[in-house]
């Protein structure tokens, strides 16, 4: 390579350097240039492939669903009966089950999740531990000095651990622990207050309530993590202003801190809703797989994801198309919820940075 050759010789030499100028320093070799160009192109290509992958996923599912969309039309979404023998397919019951269980789980999971986020972000625990240690005059000992912070971190990691347990394990735990545990109470409630629509049936095994309980546990870490981030990123000066005026901890929380963090918390809850809608295994194992629309917490129901999980393995070519249609409906619902959640969080981050 002519361009890689030394530019010119010059006579200077010091005892430390004996090489001619340009002996070490070279313009990039042909190999380096080619590798650089290829590497950059490759990275660029893979970035585009990510976009294409998402497009391909949507296109693949849509394409497979098109025959079913043609034959079944919108009646598929409004039909309540799924009977493969009769050739009647409708997923309204599954859509109802998906949204009903997710909303209930979200209510439960948000209460616990936001409470845990407040508890972990406002220094309640470390303050309490510090106070307790001080009672015994242990608070400044080398071992105990860091204890309050360590305990708080441990608690935070335990909450995160809830998210690490696979959903199928939660399903197993739900079948053998939750259902036997709550069944007597549920049946007692049904016996005493059966006129309330929510308690209008008895719990014979799988049903909405155990599914909701387990689902709530599964989305709780998402709510906690995002809410905690939102609370922690409330500027300290806002906090100080409230405390400085003599507000108690909770007065400042309700009046100032929670409103400031509300967008972030709400975004987290919406994302958790997206998770709940798409969650499959725990529901397939606990919800009972029965296509009915009831308000009762104790009756079995079905969800879109559970429908897919149960029917795909043995589906014939015709049924595959119909299931793809159901998958497309699930995709549309979760897509809308996830985009909304991401959008809210994005706006919250913008507000925060202003």
């Amino acid at each position, binding site marked *: 390579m002519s*361009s890689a050759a030394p530019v010119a010789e010059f006579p200077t*030499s010091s005892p430390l*350097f004996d090489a001619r*100028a340009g002996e*070490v*320093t*070279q*313009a*990039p070799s042909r*190999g380096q240039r080619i590798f650089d160009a290829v590497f950059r192109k490759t990275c660029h290509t893979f970035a585009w492939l990510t976009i294409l992958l998402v497009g391909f996923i949507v296109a693949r599912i849509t394409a497979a669903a098109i025959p079913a969309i043609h034959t079944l039309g919108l009646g598929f979404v409004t039909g309540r009966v799924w009977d493969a023998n009769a050739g009647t397919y409708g997923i309204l019951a599954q859509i109802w089950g998906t949204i009903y269980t997710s909303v209930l789980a979200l209510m439960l999971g948000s209460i616990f999740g936001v409470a845990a986020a407040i508890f972990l972000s406002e220094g309640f625990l470390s303050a309490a531990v510090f106070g307790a240690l001080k009672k015994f005059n242990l608070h400044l000992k080398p071992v105990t000095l860091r204890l309050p912070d360590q305990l708080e971190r441990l608690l935070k990691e335990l909450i995160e651990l809830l998210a690490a347990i696979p959903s199928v394990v939660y399903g197993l735990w739900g079948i053998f622990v939750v259902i036997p545990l709550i069944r007597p109470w549920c049946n007692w409630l049904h016996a005493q207050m059966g006129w309330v629509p929510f308690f209008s049936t008895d719990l014979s095994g799988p049903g909405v309530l155990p599914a909701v309980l387990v689902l709530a546990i599964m989305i709780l870490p998402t709510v906690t993590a995002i809410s905690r981030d939102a609370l922690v990123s409330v500027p300290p000066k806002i906090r100080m202003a409230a405390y400085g005026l003599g507000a108690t901890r909770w007065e400042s929380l309700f009046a100032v801190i929670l409103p400031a963090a509300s967008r972030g918390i709400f975004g987290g809850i919406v994302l958790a809703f997206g998770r709940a809608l798409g969650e499959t295994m725990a529901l397939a194992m606990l919800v009972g797989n029965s296509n009915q629309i009831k308000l009762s917490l104790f009756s079995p129901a079905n969800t879109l994801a559970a429908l897919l999980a149960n029917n795909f393995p043995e589906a014939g070519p015709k049924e595959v198309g119909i299931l793809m249609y159901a998958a497309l409906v699930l995709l549309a619902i979760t897509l809308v919820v996830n985009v909304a959640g991401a959008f809210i969080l994005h706006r919250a981050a913008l507000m925060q940075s202003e």
Partner: protein
Amino acid sequence: MSTAMPPLRPANGHAATLPAEKRDDIVVDCHIRELYYGSFKAVRDTEIPIRKNSITAFIGPSGCGKSTVLRCLNRMNDLVRGFRFEGHVRYRGRDIYAHGIDPVAVRRFIGMVFQQPNPFATSIFNNVAFGLRLNGFKGDRADKVEKALRAAALWDEVKDKLNKSGLSLSGGQQQRLCIARAIATEPEVLLMDEPCSALDPIATRRIEELMTELSQKFTIAIVTHNLQQAQRVADYTGFLYVDTTQGGRTGYLVEFNHSKHLFEDPQHPHTQQYIRGEFS
């Protein structure tokens, strides 16, 4: 290749502001007519010749664009969004901003030492050998590393811990490590952007001595806000000033001369005021 260079010829004398001196020992001939970051005009009308085996210092108040000018000399400004440049920078007679010139190749011949010491998160040896690997050097790496570390006056302090992380050194040692890294590949020109601003006086002194030694082998351009430093080490000094008359803050070259002349007998009133310490 698009970067095939024309044969070496003497620089044609845009930068001749000094009387009675040969023009053919100019290694980098910098002529900035206008330099923009987006719509912000950062520098105008700056002509600085950088001569072989000399030290050229850029001084001036903060915000006068002296670092910007320095970063023009090896096209580091290409990394800044919206950077636009009018004029030329000739390295050995070739315009490094000409079409088809590879900025990567330019930077291999015109090395750079930064304001903050910036060793890589790897061993001392690998830090110095980085440039050798970059250039695909096939010879005795250990020998080159030792020579560079000796030249940077760091060898005696680190010879027993070449496998320790470069980040474990003190600030002054880190900066000398960065100098060793820059000179290990033996580039022709070394640009130093306030190399001592993060260091204490003793470390600063060592780097200054080092620069004087290195100028026997390398051509050095240095940005400094320390007038004494420029006076102590530089053969030539350029004084840049900020022009605020047109609304923006545009830097330009006020005066360029031998350091001795510039400090003892400044011609321009701005230079006189600055050297007397009447503004910073």
